[in-house]
């Protein structure tokens, strides 16, 4: 037992943004500097704690020991059958970490801290901005920590609302339209997710407990319960007949399995985004303020993939395996489609938006490969892309502040006046196109390596993406940094130290992961390996 297992560390991490929020709300609204400092400090708390947790995490044991659970909400259901059975809806405040969520938790705290640090662009209503910002962090941390469907949903929606306001109030010129589009798409996604969750709670969430004077039939949102039921649907058969009334109450037909899987796929696919649900994201990338895009592209998109893995793959391995070809095709389409369209854009932010689509294609490819390597690759790509896109948008924010534009034709030759920032942009671009030694390569390599085991031709098509990625990254990055200097840019100054600091931090992480990927893969391995074992046993058993 380590020290962290004795204290409710997950709750501390989850609620630490609330501390920041409380202090910010108490500060007078005009003290911009103080508000900002508080916000940065507040983001450092979860950062430090999650680092500690990451170091403390026992890779051999997985996340056991950190779990926290408390009854939160029980709703009795009217029953007219008999008196010995009591029926309940039960929702828990349940938190937990495993190899899948821990890296994303760490990613969230890193990117959020850097985004708070980089929020220079906020010129109005600081108090409200950082208030929403803290709430957003709370939501994101919650999404990755929650181990109850209802709790997960609530945190998911918190991020939605917070992002909506952050885009709609502090964004660029067309911010309101972008925010609306964001809300509509994600609202639809959330609605679908809610339907899927309700169905899950009502089928797989079922459990029976002994209670005073009879039994309790409990419909719970607990991920552990649902996972156990999905993995072993026959468990109820072994219950005493008087408890189950002689029938297996856990009945999920083949059709229901598929319905749920597809609902989850669409719900999280919108968030990811999967072609053809990607258009909402373009506007958001273009109009949202830089620090919010850092978070959006760095973390919020990852929530889609996280949900897809956690609920789609882990709960429905059979369906996912049968749908793997579809997933792989979607992934390759995402990869190539995004790359080709990124090549066409003349607005750097749109290039990056399409690039995100392309990179999420690699995540899908990794998922579709259906082996440990591919899944590791997908998770690695999530973390890596989170860092890289955060870094890229950080630079975009600083660029825009100086030049007032992100249109490629109006940029060029910035390496002369801003060598440091151009250098960082170049390295970030290289990371994005998968240069070995930087984190992008490992995710790409592992994903494709995984897919290659089963789907040769799709992998070959995906390898085309390697070339196309180089084409669009170089076109845009060189377009900005190389070439003759423009007259209007001669007076620009390079990044100040405070601006450079988050860039250096993110770059350091990108390098670290690129050179020593086992720092991440070893942590993920426990969860991935466990899932593989379960899959193999169900394959041999069924």
């Amino acid at each position: 037992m380590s020290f962290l297992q004795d204290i409710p560390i997950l709750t501390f991490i989850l609620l630490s943004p609330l501390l920041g929020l409380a202090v910010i709300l108490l500060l007078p609204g005009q003290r911009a500097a103080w508000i900002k400092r508080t916000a940065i400090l507040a983001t450092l708390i979860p950062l430090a704690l999650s680092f500690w947790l990451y170091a403390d995490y026992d890779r051999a044991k997985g996340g056991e020991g950190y779990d926290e659970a408390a009854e939160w909400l029980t709703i009795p259901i009217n029953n007219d059958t008999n008196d010995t059975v009591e029926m309940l809806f039960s929702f828990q405040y349940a938190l937990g970490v495993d190899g899948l969520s821990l890296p994303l938790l760490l990613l969230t705290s890193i990117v959020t801290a850097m985004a708070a640090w980089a929020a220079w662009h906020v010129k109005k209503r600081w108090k409200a901005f950082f208030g929403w910002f803290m709430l957003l962090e709370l939501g994101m941390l919650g999404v990755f920590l929650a181990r109850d469907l209802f709790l997960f949903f609530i945190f998911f929606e918190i991020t939605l609302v917070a992002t909506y306001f952050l885009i709609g109030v502090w964004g660029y010129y067309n911010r309101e339209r972008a925010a609306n589009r964001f809300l509509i798409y994600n609202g639809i996604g959330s609605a679908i997710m809610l339907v899927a969750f309700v169905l899950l709670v009502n089928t797989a969430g079922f459990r029976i407990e002994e209670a005073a004077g009879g039994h309790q039939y409990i419909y719970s949102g607990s991920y552990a319960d649902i996972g156990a039921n999905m993995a072993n649907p026959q468990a109820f058969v072994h219950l005493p007949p008087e408890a189950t009334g002689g029938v297996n109450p856990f009945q999920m037909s083949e059709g229901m399995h598929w319905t749920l899987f597809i609902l989850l796929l669409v719900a999280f696919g919108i968030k990811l985004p999967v072609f053809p649900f990607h258009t909402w994201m373009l506007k958001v990338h273009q109009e949202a303020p830089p620090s919010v895009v850092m978070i959006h592209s760095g973390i919020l998109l990852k929530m889609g993939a996280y949900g897809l893995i956690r609920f789609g793959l882990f709960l429905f391995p059979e369906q996912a395996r049968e749908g793997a070809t579809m997933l792989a095709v979607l992934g390759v389409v995402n990869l190539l489609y995004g790359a080709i369209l990124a090549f066409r854009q003349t607005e750097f932010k749109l290039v990056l938006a399409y690039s995100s689509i392309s990179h999420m294609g690699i995540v899908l490819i990794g998922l579709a490969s259906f082996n440990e390597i591919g899944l590791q690759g997908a998770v690695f790509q999530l973390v890596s892309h989170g860092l890289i896109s955060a870094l890229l948008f950080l630079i975009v924010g600083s660029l825009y502040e100086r030049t007032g534009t992100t249109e490629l034709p109006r940029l060029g030759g910035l390496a002369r006046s801003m060598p440091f920032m151009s250098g960082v942009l170049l390295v970030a671009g290289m990371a994005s196109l998968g240069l070995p030694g930087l984190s992008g390569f490992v995710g790409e390599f592992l994903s494709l390596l995984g897919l290659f085991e089963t789907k040769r031709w799709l992998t070959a098509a995906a390898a085309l993406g390697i070339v196309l990625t180089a084409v669009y990254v170089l076109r845009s990055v060189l377009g900005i940094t190389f070439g003759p200097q423009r007259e209007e840019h001669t007076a620009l100054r390079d990044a100040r130290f405070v601006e450079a600091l988050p860039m250096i931090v993110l770059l350091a992480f990108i390098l670290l992961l690129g050179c020593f990927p086992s720092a991440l893969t070893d942590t993920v391995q426990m969860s991935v390996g466990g899932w593989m074992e379960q899959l193999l046993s169900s394959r041999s058993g069924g």
Partner: protein
Amino acid sequence: MDMFAKIAWVIPLLPLASFLILTALGRSYRTAGVWIGSIGSLGAFVMSLLVLLERLKPNPVDYSNGFDWITIGDYTLTIGYEVTNLTSLMLVIVTLVGFLVNVYSAGYMKEDERITVFYGYVSLFTFSMLGLVLSDNLLSFYLFWELVGVCSFLLIGFWYARPAAKAAAKKAFIVTRIGDAGLFLAILLLFWYMPEHALGFTMIESVFDNQGGTITEGITTLIALLIFLGAVGKSGQFPLHVWLPDAMEGPTPISALIHAATMVAAGVFLVARTFDIFEASEAAMQTVAYVGAFTAIFAATIALAQNDLKRVLAYSTVSQLGYMMLALGLGSLAGGIFHLFTHAFFKALLFLAAGSVIHAAHTQDVREMGGLGSRMKTTAWTFAIGALALSGIPPLSGFWSKDLILAVALEENLLLFAVALAAAFCTALYMTRLFVLVFLGKPKQAEERTAGAKESPAVMTIPLIVLAALAVAAGFVETPWNGWFGHWLTDGAGEAHGSAIAIVCSVAVGVLGVLAGWAIWGRERGAGEAAATLAGRAPGLVRLAERKYYIDEAYEAVFVRGLRGIGAVLEAFDRYVVGGAVKLAGLAANAAGRLALRLQNGQVQTYSLAAVLGIIVIVLAVIGRRMLS
């Protein structure tokens, strides 16, 4: 015993340390860059030399070591280093040329304000190249393979403000990236087909050498061809050669180091390192040989008609790399690597001498030069040695290596022998042309510009002299009557090829080429006239060679436009079909809303009617359920 081999991993770290120090220092410390970069590469050279000397002892044992990079379940990917005869030789070539280029650049890049950055990049390149050479498996090879590519890209685009440099850097990266994708797929194939998912070169050797039928013929050929695709990209073989001539936009020392001696030879090195895969597949060997031979003659003819000093040398490099590939394709590992070895010295020498000329004359166009021989004696003499070595004139090093290849070709395939001879003739021809136009005769146009030309400082000429000495002497390790080099390299499977016919032919075409060149361009004639005589006889051909057979234009038309076209189509699709569907959904929702709005007419009576209808529906539903149950 293997003391130096065991600490061979330190060798790449020295230049890496230089790079890190230089990056941390920033660009203000100008002379520090020169010193730190040079010391790093000198240290690496000394250590490499020690490793090589250790390998020269009888029966050296290969030494390898490494660590697990990623472990996923039962799969392990490692990064490690391995010291063999081949790698120790490459180590010395890379570090020696690297060190000399470092010294040379102190003079060449003196005026540049970003000299520290330059040295940083060069150190990073040296690190990556040494890592590539030392790698013990294909994955770590690939990591460094990409890194050298990126360093090459950075250095081609070193003068980033020039649009031409920007375009060349981009082109170099993307074209080699196509080859890299091939190598990438080859690694994936190997990973899943090799027993125990091993990617180590030693494993590859033992698996493919024995041909136990574990891997089928078709897959072997596919793997070999994909690896070769990577080599084609990196080594500028046809049809991916287009980036290499453009890469001459980079500073000249870089052209010598990266685009002549080391990185472009990495493709040859890759084929040599995975030679057992190729040997297991007849089709793959044929492909390598024919692509190499075609590239050799193809690039040599282009070189004949180019007017840019560095471009001529670049096409010559492409052509010579074709030679090496030809040797490998014909099954002569020693021939390919021997030519790589000698070529590294004399081509680096030629580039550095050309740099010295450009430094003095401030132009790269040979038509504007002439008569520089008298003003720049050292440069002229060393250039002449390099040119003769390249032309294959005995007893210079180029002769011996080229002769070995020709001898092998004579044994194996007469057609390829003829092609190689023709290429050798062209080589002698264009080198003579180059030498005559640059160093002999009278100064041509732009008198006032070339007038100030004078010999370069000692820091630039000393590397030239060292390289010239090597260009003379390096060939004697392997002669038709002394197969020591091949014996040492291939570990006993010695292949001393001596063929009188090959020697005679080789000397004949070399001398003939020089004489023909002298006849056409020599004797004090103006360059314009000379070009006119050749162009007058075969205007179409000359124009074709001058425009590089329109390959660039063809690629532009097919791939660049093609990609743009697909992009345009997809963009329209994205905007109108996907976006249209979204808009349609929005419109549908709007229409539904408008329809519902009709009900909202402000008439309380309508609302009540709706309520009553609702009640009726509920009542009916309740009654219906009762009646059904």
